[in-house]
């Protein structure tokens, strides 16, 4: 898109991309001012109407996925 010089004005990035500023820098403001940063706006967790608490639990994992799965339930 950068090389074909299309007239795209807005790019939506996935929430899983934290380094949007890097992408803005790489993209540049426009072909004639490719050295300057494209404007970028970040909408983070603070925009969530319902706050989400996230927990990641890691477990020791002998055996295949079936064995592991059973162990996660109970003995």
């Amino acid at each position, binding site marked *: 898109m950068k090389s074909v010089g299309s007239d795209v004005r807005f790019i939506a990035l996935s*929430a899983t991309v934290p380094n949007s500023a*890097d992408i803005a820098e790489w993209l540049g403001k426009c072909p004639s001012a490719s050295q300057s940063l494209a404007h970028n706006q970040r909408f983070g967790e603070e925009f969530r109407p319902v706050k*989400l608490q996230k927990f990641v639990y*890691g477990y020791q994992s002998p055996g295949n996925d079936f064995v592991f799965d059973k162990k996660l*339930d*109970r003995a």
Partner: protein
Amino acid sequence: MTSYLIRNWIERKWIISWAYRSGKFVLTQSYNDRLPEVIQKHSARKPIMVFCMTRAMCISTAKVLAQCFSTAKPADRMWPTPTIQFSFRDKDLHSTGACGVAFHHAGLDQNDRALVERLFLEGHLSVICCTSTLAVGVNLPAHLVVIKNTATWSNGGPKEYVDLEVMQMLGRAGRPQFDDTGVAVIMTRREHQVRYEKMVSGTEILESW
């Protein structure tokens, strides 16, 4: 370890590896009740969704949770007892349903599936064990979402979920009309823990090489 836990608690994100705990006995004990333990800790007696790898695992997990419910003393039960009577065509579903636990997958009878969805929304069923397909399409918000094992059945074998699937499942947590918070728990193998921790905290840097 303690300062690590406190620091992560302040950030409202915990990482716990059982192996870090002292003694083998603790480790073996904790194997036995991992899912019930997670539910006990995080559900606040509100609706729960558990994502499982296969249809068969939805059923077996639902049975285990139903058994947990029926063997516990009424005061110790982790979710409320259904207050109305309902009947499912599927025998397994009928018996787990009486304990407030259901399973939901594409192989289930159309009527049973619709009934599970309705009863869950109305609060008569408290737990749904489902496959990742329920994360898209059907709007069933839950207070607590648990991804039990981060593998899914794909092309004839277990594969780790892709990022988008995980985000969609986590997105089921929180019910805007009832709650002001939602909780999402990822139960995974220790070697994948860092990957999911990065994913949920949004620190997985996108790079091109």
